[in-house]
């Protein structure tokens, strides 16, 4: 591969990325950053936890993304009585053509490219954990058989931050497997106009399929080829280590309110997402600004507050922002 071919790959990546986000943006209004980071997570091979109040377009975002990418889509509505088999699938008895019976694996909704786990915190931890293997290894095990999931595989989970009663907060191990945690904020007044105009008409806003699974995998390969200088990578490591209260890079808030800091997965997410951000800028290198741009969604759900932090209702966003301000680039 020559530098010229690399330059062409970068341009192709950037073009695809922009087309995807623009196409999603035709239906999802006022959430450009969420769309950008969701696509980033898809390209990086990560999963996204979307947090927001009901009605801000979380489910619509996932639907639209699946439509734009021409990928298999499934939706799982998490409820307290949902069982793991309802997600993964189960063996059922089938009758053969010759009259015999046999077990046949009935695939669950997890077998899709884009899985919407709606209100994931309403299911029990047992059911939530059914997603662990799928999210980490892109495979599910049923009985003695392991089934490989199709790539690209993307879990988009949503949770409601207001209704905490009757919910099961996600365990740390589960949270750590999400590449990003994105907060879907309430749209602005101008965005509300667009939303109303697009959703109250007779005809729905059509979107076209601008990419497919192989294109996403190719983009993933290109993204991982981006070079990153050691000092920039060191900054991502310092940010990650700085989220630990006993680290020399820890800030005052971290020392006071944090019980456990981010795992190495956070550093992986920082670097990988920064590479995609660099490609979106059309560059072949990762800069400090790329790291900083993705630090908040990559770290906020990986920081576990202590009792004092919970009591003082400290936001992990505040802690991450202080880290960004305190850790030298």
């Amino acid at each position, binding site marked *: 591969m020559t*530098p010229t071919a690399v330059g062409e790959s970068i341009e192709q990546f950037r073009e695809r990325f922009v087309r995807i986000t623009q196409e999603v943006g035709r239906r999802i209004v006022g959430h450009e950053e969420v769309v950008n980071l969701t696509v980033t997570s898809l390209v990086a091979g990560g999963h996204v936890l979307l947090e927001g109040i009901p009605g801000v377009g979380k489910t619509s975002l996932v639907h639209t993304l699946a439509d734009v990418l021409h990928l298999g889509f499934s939706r799982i509505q998490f409820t307290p009585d949902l069982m793991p088999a309802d997600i993964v699938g189960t063996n059922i008895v089938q009758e053969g053509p010759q009259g015999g019976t046999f077990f046949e694996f009935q695939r669950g909704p997890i077998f899709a490219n884009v899985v919407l786990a709606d209100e994931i915190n309403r299911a029990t931890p047992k059911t939530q954990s059914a997603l662990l293997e799928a999210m980490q290894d892109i495979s599910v095990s049923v009985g003695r058989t392991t089934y490989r999931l199709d790539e690209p595989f993307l879990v988009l989970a949503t949770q409601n931050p207001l209704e905490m009663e009757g919910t099961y907060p996600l365990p740390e191990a589960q949270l750590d497997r999400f590449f990003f945690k994105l907060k879907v904020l309430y749209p602005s007044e101008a965005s509300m106009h667009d939303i109303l105009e697009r959703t109250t008409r007779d005809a729905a806003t059509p979107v076209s399929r601008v990419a497919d699974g192989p294109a996403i995998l190719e983009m993933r390969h290109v993204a991982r080829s981006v070079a990153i*200088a050691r*000092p*920039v990578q060191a900054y991502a490591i310092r940010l990650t280590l700085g989220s630990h209260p006993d680290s020399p890079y820890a800030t005052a808030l971290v020392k006071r309110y944090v019980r456990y800091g981010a795992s190495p997965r956070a550093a992986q997410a920082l670097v990988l997402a920064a590479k995609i951000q660099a490609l979106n800028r059309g560059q072949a*290198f990762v800069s400090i600004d790329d790291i900083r741009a993705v630090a908040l969604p990559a770290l906020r759900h990986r920081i576990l507050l202590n009792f004092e932090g919970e009591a003082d209702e400290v936001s992990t966003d505040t802690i991450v922002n202080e880290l960004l301000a305190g850790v030298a680039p």
Partner: protein
Amino acid sequence: MARMYPAGHVVRAGVARADRLRRSRETARRLWRAAPIAAALSVAVAGTSRWAGWPVLVPLGAVALAGASLVGYVYSTRRDHAVSDVAAAEIDAEAGLGGELRSAHWFSEREGQNPWIDLHLGRAAERVQGIDWAQLYPAVRANRAKTASAVMALGALVLALSVPGRIGIQARTPATTTTAARTQRPSSVTSLPPDLQKELEALLKLAESGGTASGGKALTASELRDLLARIDKLRGMPGLKDGKLDPNTPGSKPGEMPGDLKALTERLKRASEMGSLSPELKDAFAEAAQKLADASKTQPTSPKDPQEALAAADAQKGPAGESKSPGSQEENSVKAVKDASAGGGAGVVMMSSQEASSGKDPGLGLGGGSAQNSGRGRMADLGAALRKETIEAKTDNPGENVETEMRRNTERGDATVAYTKVAPRAFERGRSSAPPAVPEGRRAAVHSYFTRKQ
């Protein structure tokens, strides 16, 4: 196969140039911020030096030190060295390159074959070449700082090299005077006056020839006395300091007589021991030898240094030194401080030495004027000792051996301790008055009384 990236050289060169310009600019900014301060300090030092009369080397040294410090700082900061990642990041931020230069600088120092890095470095090299670093880091002008520094440095030099200060003149004058005075001293005598020496030689020849003159005539006692009287006159002769030979006599050491006088004295002593001579002649020779020895003794305690003299004068002005100068031997000598208690104990006695042969100053000091410590007794110690004595003397402590009231009264009486007119190093033997002369008519009797009859 690993290799250095081709575009990396351009990136490194560009970053190095930018770093050099940046450091120069920063150095110049700091330099011209510090230079006026250093120059002002130099002016202050020069002014203070002029006012206080310090040597001219002090302000010159201050100016030189300030200049050397600034030059050293400039030299140390402008030396070429490897550009650090932090410096590259700062240059990158100042050039608005969005982290590309920093990343490229790091990759430019590595080897490898990665088309992505090739592309990265190639793009970075193009951007680096397109940047006018001299415009990004323009030279610091700082005209006002330069002018102020130059003016103040010049002022410091003018102050330092101009007319010395008032105190400087005053401080130098005594030393010059002293030096001149030393150089204007008359050359000291190295021997006796020629006529006296001739007579002594003749007298010695006479003694060595059997006590008769060259004409066969024996030397009379009156002639001998006349000779002795002439030797006595040596005390008043020029070249003799207070009756003694000048200690600055070339070739003589303090406390020693010149070689020719010493030989002459030895000859006189030998003559006084010759059995063929009459007792009068032997006495005359012995006396002549003694007088010559006395006259040739030097006085080492005379302060040579004006500062020592000043110190001695200050010591006289102390609380104990009420009198300005010793007026007589009695005033100078004995003022004893005795323990008022009957037992005596560790009495502290200060007295001047009366031994003529010691040749040392009585001085001041605990336990009297010892040879080494006299004159070096500290007034604070003396004052403490005197206060102690006064207190003890005032105390009505009869002691065990006091039996009578009269004794007690004596002991209790106001034993006011005082020592006056004791001047350290000021006792001069030449000021002592000689005992009254023996009348001419009784000299023979005195001689015969003190002379052993053979």
